[in-house]
């Protein structure tokens, strides 16, 4: 109790002298002068109108998904630009990616990890456990890569046919040795990891202050 009273007395003295303002202003100035120690890769994504995408891309989507409304996005990074159509068709969520000229790159279909064949699912989970100390699958997408004709036939058949390379793109919240973050992990058809990329999250500071 004595130490508490002493602490309160000191606090009142500091307040009376208004000296408490000095460290506060010093901290404020120091924080504004903190040098930037790292850079983030600049990526931008924005909506584009259907009539401003290349004809070949618009035709591919309207031909295969004629009753579904597509939302079009342009994705720009430091080095590349791509166009993506997102739509829901026959109860499934599709993302169809094209390059800037309208050449199709891949088709992604949102699935549940439980929809995968048991052996593939086990290999994916084993590889995730080997990569991360802790992890949780947030989103799973089936990725089909192939020629335009092969992709068209696969969509119509609702299954990957000859000429289609199947991959799995999985977003996980994972903890590595140093950091917990969201990662996009690409697996081949056997469940082997092809690439792992940390997802740079947007600054949401305005939501917490």
């Amino acid at each position, binding site marked *: 109790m004595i130490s508490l009273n002493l602490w309160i007395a000191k606090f009142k003295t500091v307040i009376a002298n208004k000296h408490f303002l000095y460290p*506060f202003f010093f901290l404020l100035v120091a924080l504004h002068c903190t040098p930037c120690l790292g850079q983030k890769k600049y990526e931008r*994504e924005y909506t584009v109108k259907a009539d401003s995408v290349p004809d070949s891309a618009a035709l591919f989507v309207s031909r295969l998904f004629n009753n579904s409304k597509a939302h079009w996005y342009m994705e720009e990074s430091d080095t590349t630009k791509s166009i993506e159509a997102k739509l829901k068709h026959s109860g499934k969520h599709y993302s169809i990616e094209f390059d800037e000229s309208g050449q199709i790159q891949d088709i992604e279909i949102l699935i549940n990890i439980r929809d995968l064949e048991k052996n593939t699912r086990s290999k994916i989970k084993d590889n995730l456990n080997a990569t991360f100390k802790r992890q949780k699958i947030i989103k799973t997408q089936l990725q089909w890569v192939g020629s335009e004709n092969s992709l068209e036939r696969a969509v119509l058949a609702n299954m990957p046919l000859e000429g289609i390379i199947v991959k799995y793109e999985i977003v996980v*919240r994972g903890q590595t040795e140093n950091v917990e973050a969201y990662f996009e992990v690409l697996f081949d058809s056997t469940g082997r990891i092809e690439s792992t990329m940390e997802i740079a999250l*947007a*600054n*949401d500071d*305005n939501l917490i*202050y």
Partner: protein
Amino acid sequence: MESRQILSQKEIDKFPSHRFQYERTDLTLLLTTKLSVNNTIGGGYMIRLEDNTYYHRIIQQFNNVRKFEWFSVAHRVLADETFTNHGLNNFRISYRIGIQKPLNGQYIDPKEFYAKVNNDFLGTWSRGESDFEIGILPALGYTATANNKIELGVDYRVNELKKNGIAQQFWVTLGWFISI
């Protein structure tokens, strides 16, 4: 830093006043650290000048922010204690839920607008009295650069719910968020 100016006010059984009036200025220093990718805790100090009196506030807060496909949801639980020269002035606990959605595409990128709505619930205990306040704060935001955001919105609050006539406050808010 936050500053408030009153443009119009009315008390029960009195005529409204539309005179410009300085209300207060707050200077807050809040430091947060990540517990995990979605969770942060923070603490800070605020000094307020109001009616020629300095108020000192100690702040503790926990935040959870989750990004979904098309929007972000933030939960904030905050406790603070406010002191004056005469000792503890009040103790408050608040919960705030906020939803933020880009107005162009799935992510809020530089040079894009976004919409944000906060809804907060605030309990205050002050010298044996308690009060409960509810606020809703819709805002339109603009991301000028990755580290600069500007928001224009309104802040509508009701409190003194236990009394006969509830008190209502309507603020226009202009915010500038700089990440360093």
